């Protein structure tokens, strides 16, 4: 019923439904290696050179994503009847997302956007949908961070770098719980800020 949420998140760009299947997806086209680039690269979503003001915009976007994840896991822990591996995952990862949000909020200081209100609908109602939504959210978050990395100043990139690999760990963890390949491809795709924003908007999670 609520699978459209996962579809909406995955349509954020690179994450295809096919990637859900348990398989190794290294196609002939995966590695391009033209010129100085290591392979076919995602387009840089922000054309301006890194700057403090651009950092703030990107960090606010990251803050929204982290707050969304934190709220999602908090509600899932309260509402869905979780047990075993998934209960542990939701508890541990929920804690991480709260720490990420606090970290970014502190970095932004007075520039931090106001926290939005979330409505997760049925997506926190049972273990199955919680796991599948979490998978989509985590993979999207990795793609979003990877997409913005090159747009950040080195100092902010260093800070964001401490978070993105933990998001990738979360993605691998929930994928393994779901019985799908934790690392489906040799390189993680990147999505643009516009793609990520559109994906999150389509879910209707942000009121």
């Amino acid at each position, binding site marked *: 019923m609520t699978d459209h949420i996962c579809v909406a998140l995955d349509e954020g760009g690179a994450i295809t439904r096919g990637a859900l299947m348990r398989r190794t997806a290294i196609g002939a086209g995966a590695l391009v290696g033209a010129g*100085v680039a290591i392979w076919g690269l995602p387009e840089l979503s922000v054309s301006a050179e890194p700057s403090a003001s651009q950092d703030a915009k990107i960090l606010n976007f990251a803050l929204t994503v982290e707050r969304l994840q934190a709220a999602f896991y908090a509600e899932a822990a309260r509402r869905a009847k979780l047990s075993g591996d998934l209960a542990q995952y939701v508890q541990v990862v929920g804690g*991480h997302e709260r720490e990420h949000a606090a970290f970014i909020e502190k970095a932004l200081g007075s520039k931090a956007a106001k926290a939005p209100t979330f409505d997760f609908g049925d997506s926190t109602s049972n273990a199955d949908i919680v796991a599948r939504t979490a998978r989509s959210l985590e993979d999207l978050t990795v793609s979003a961070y990877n997409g913005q*990395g*090159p747009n950040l100043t080195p100092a902010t990139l*260093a800070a964001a770098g401490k978070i993105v690999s933990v998001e990738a*760990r979360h*993605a691998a963890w929930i994928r393994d719980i779901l019985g799908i390949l*934790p*690392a489906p491809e040799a390189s993680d795709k*990147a999505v643009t800020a516009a793609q990520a924003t559109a994906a999150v908007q389509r879910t209707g999670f942000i009121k």
Partner: protein
Amino acid sequence: MTELRFEDLDVDGAFGEAVAELHGTSRAQLLRGAVVGSGALLGLLSLPSIAAAQTPSTDQAIMNYALLLEELQSAFYTDVDRNKVLTGALKEQATTVATHERAHVTALRKALGSKAIKRPHFDFGSAVEGPTAFRRTAVAFEDLAVEAYKGQAPKVKSRAVLASLLAIHSVEARHAAWIRRLAGKLPAASAFDDPRSAKSTLKLVADTKFVMTTKSTGSSPRFTG
């Protein structure tokens, strides 16, 4: 303790090339007076001339450093796969990750072209001869790779190169989470992953003694998580 020269340890020169490039000095400079003991490259890396030198300064140096780490991982998984000592979920992890690490090597080599370091030789000993040692070593390698990429990302000048290295960095984190779960550890042990400097990373790599040597010091690999 028999003293070994760096040249004897680093038979194919790959390590020296990578270290020299990272520290902005030449392999010849490294070799001059570089005498190392049983601590292998540890001694070399702590020489004052190296310590005083700059850390990775060019994108090419960073990519060669990444290539060295990918060659290490690629050989590790390829060897364990060939030994056919793994089964089930562990075998699936090793086979899949081997494919990824080989793809990383290929991509980096292609990008570096003639500037790529030579392919090093490795001997993983007992680490690729059974599931327990393999699992411990794999956890250590993957967590190390995440830290190593993270340490270099803010120094990369080309945004295109950075985008590519970030795409690898998060996959290494997925590998780390995957093998940690198979080892009964929390896939994400804390909310933040820390970076590691090239110097510290190379010390750890050297300390494994997985880099093939011509003169054995008689000890087995120690870096098993």
